[in-house]
């Protein structure tokens, strides 16, 4: 059992005698494997909750049901992008490759979830607000800017050759991209907002059944997000090991 300091991802699994890369990759895969069982279950429950259990909204009708998926995806894209920021900072401090694996995997999964948010949003907005894309709303604009920044991150990543420089640059860009989020938010906030604020500090303005459905949906999406990140991290670790083998 080896102890590394400053801590990297090994630290999280210190309880088991894992100290080599292939064991770490196997652990990621095992986490992904084990989360598949609750994931299938949660997905079915979330679908049941969104389409059958939750009552139809009085004014918006059936189209409101997209809300359960929209909110779940939105929460997870912020979670994933926070993972990019965290991975970037930790990589620059520790220079441990596994943090770069985390950041890169989180970007990929985050972009997928953001794309989902930006697709479900207009489908709902067209019948309700009578417009696909209402400009000037802080949430919509922030999400769109996030999407642009992290697609740019993927472009930067693909145009750099493998090596420490690549991981450093990507970490730096992940950090400055994340710093942008609050600024974008405030720069649009003093425009009029039309995005519904469903959950406020004083409580949610929803039927109890709707809250249950939303809750299950958010959990299911979060498990999906973690599973995907773990799969991508295992893939990256495997390919970096294969690279080391071919170059040694």
């Amino acid at each position, binding site marked *: 059992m080896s102890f590394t300091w400053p801590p990297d991802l090994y630290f999280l699994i210190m309880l088991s005698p894992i100290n080599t890369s292939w064991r770490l990759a196997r652990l990621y895969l095992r986490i992904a494997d084990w989360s598949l069982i609750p994931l299938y279950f949660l997905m079915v429950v979330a679908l049941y909750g969104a389409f059958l259990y939750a009552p139809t909204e009085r004014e918006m009708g059936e189209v409101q049901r997209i809300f359960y998926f929209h909110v779940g995806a939105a929460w997870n894209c912020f979670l994933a992008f926070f993972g990019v920021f965290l991975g970037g900072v930790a990589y620059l401090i520790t220079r441990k490759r596994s943090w770069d694996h985390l950041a890169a995997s989180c970007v990929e999964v985050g972009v997928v979830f953001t794309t989902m948010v930006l697709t479900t949003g207009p489908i709902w907005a067209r019948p309700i607000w009578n417009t696909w894309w209402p400009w000037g709303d802080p949430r919509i604009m922030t999400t769109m800017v996030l999407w642009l920044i992290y697609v740019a991150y993927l472009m930067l990543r693909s145009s750099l050759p493998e090596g420490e420089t690549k991981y*450093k*640059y990507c970490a730096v860009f992940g950090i400055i991209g994340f710093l942008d989020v609050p600024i974008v938010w405030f720069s649009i906030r*003093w425009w009029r907002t039309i995005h519904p604020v469903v959950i406020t500090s004083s409580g949610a303005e929803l039927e109890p059944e709707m809250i249950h459905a939303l809750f299950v949906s958010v959990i299911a999406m979060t498990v999906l997000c973690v599973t995907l990140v773990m799969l991508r991290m295992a893939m990256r670790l495997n390919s970096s090991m294969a690279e080391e083998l071919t170059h040694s």
Partner: protein
Amino acid sequence: MNPIALTWVLVGKDLKIEYRSRQAYLTTVFFALLILVIFNFAFDPGSPATREAAPGILWVALLFPGIIRLNRSFQVEMEEGTLYGLILSPADRGVLFLGKFLANWLFLMVVDLLVLLAFVIVYNFSFSIQLLWIALLIVLSALGFSAVGTLLGAMVSTIRTREVLLPVLLFPIILPIILPAVSGTQEILLAQEIQSLGRSVELLLAFDVIYLAAGFVLFDYVVAD
């Protein structure tokens, strides 16, 4: 040498190169002028719609040509391999960043003020004391633009596709500059009275402070070891 004197040596060096080659600022100003003219052709020239859109056009003409300058800032260093000389010099990496950033900022301010002059003439606005407020917005946004731009410019300078990559990376990050800058300019040029200009200035200042600090800290990781 103390860090401040070192910074000024770096700034002087960069500006001297630009002044002697003339190529960069002439291309930059000319590109900006072209944007002003193209937008005037794209809309109905002289119509009220063009006047309404003028503040936005001004900012496109200010931000797009800035990319030329940022690309050049590190390209001249790469061509002769002088960047390694800078890195090997006893100057701190933070001083290197400040020197590059200040040179970019000063250069952009001079170019931007020339573009503003041309803009007032081409779009038929009157010269008044209120233009000073636009100049303030320009100074603040050029600061944030060069802070992020210097960091990213150093980053992409070693990449083969840097000319394409720099705008792709830079523009999403500087999007929050455009909103307060354009709405502030709109207010100065078109509104009856000025109300929320303070907010625009505050937002630009916040952006500047955050990205200047981020650039100063992160530049260390970006220049080659």
